[in-house]
């Protein structure tokens, strides 16, 4: 029913681990559905004439879309028990309807934070062909495996 991989546990994750990439073929129908469902009707996201006045070749995907791709890459890998505690995105280039977008990431840190939460930090990029579209970082809280408490 769902797209995510099996749940990951904090003990089993290693710094440097590379996440399975997420590849999405976008199209115009999806771009319109995304604007309508998120209700971000800023002109550059739905009006080609306005987008061109802004110096863009066509309408471009909005911030929510970049955020969603980063969130999906992280949570599809880590599993639905995880909580996205922080996510930073820095957009470098626009993504247009029809682009084939690739999200890639790796684990940069595994630690217990000041509140006792078991956390991992991820470094993520979004790209289209050779064009870097976004640098991102995400912090997830990840459950502990209860295997340690189980008698061998």
């Amino acid at each position, binding site marked *: *029913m*769902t*797209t*995510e991989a099996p749940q990951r546990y904090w003990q089993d994750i290693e710094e440097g681990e590379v996440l399975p990439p997420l590849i*999405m073929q976008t199209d115009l129908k*999806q771009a319109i*559905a*995304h604007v*309508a*469902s*998120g*209700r*971000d*009707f*800023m*002109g*550059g996201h739905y*009006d080609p004439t*306005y987008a061109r*006045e*802004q*110096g*863009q070749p066509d309408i471009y995907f*909005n*911030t*929510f*879309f970049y*955020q*969603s*791709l980063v*969130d*999906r890459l992280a*949570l*599809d890998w880590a599993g*639905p*028990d995880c*909580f*996205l*505690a*922080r*996510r*930073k*995105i*820095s*957009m470098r280039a626009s993504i247009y309807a029809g682009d084939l977008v690739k999200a890639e990431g790796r684990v940069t840190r595994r630690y217990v934070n000041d509140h006792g939460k078991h956390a991992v930090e991820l470094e993520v990029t979004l790209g289209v062909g050779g064009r870097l579209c976004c640098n991102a970082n995400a912090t997830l809280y990840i459950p502990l495996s209860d295997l340690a408490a189980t008698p061998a």
Partner: protein
Amino acid sequence: MEQTRVSGFLVTIGTEEEARKMIGSHSEPWEGELEVNLPMIRYYCSSVQDGNSSYWDEDFAQRQWGGFISPPAMLFSWLLPLGWHPYPTAELEPMAMKVPLPGSSPINISSDTEFLQPVRVGDRLSFIEQLLDISPEKTNPLGVGHFITTVGEYRNQHDELVARETNILFRFTPHSDQEGAAQ
């Protein structure tokens, strides 16, 4: 100060000096008119092909979160107004649009979002923004303008902080408009 309408949003036009005087100021609290709800979550998830069980599997969501939750990227969606009402309503004026600056064209640059707890189906979100910084005038491939840094605090109906988001938006005059073409 002059206001102009850019794809539905009121944008205030002014000088960098006027904008600087607003640094540190807060917006009025703004309350989302729609409850966080599952049909809109599903519609959004289908547009980004997000199959996370937290949005699709009721038993899982109940066990893990006490009910369905919102995808993190929908945070600001819950504050955005419907495009039309049959009665007069207040108008959402995001801080980045309300700041008086020469450029009227917006493009978002970066966001840094901390989530303190899940946004849940049934929540009503409100938010308050503060203007943190205005950059000096900058030129980039799109045009000439200023980077506006704001921080927004999102609260639920119990007045609990659910998220805090620092955002940078570039308000600019496109290069094509600066090459003489009066509009």
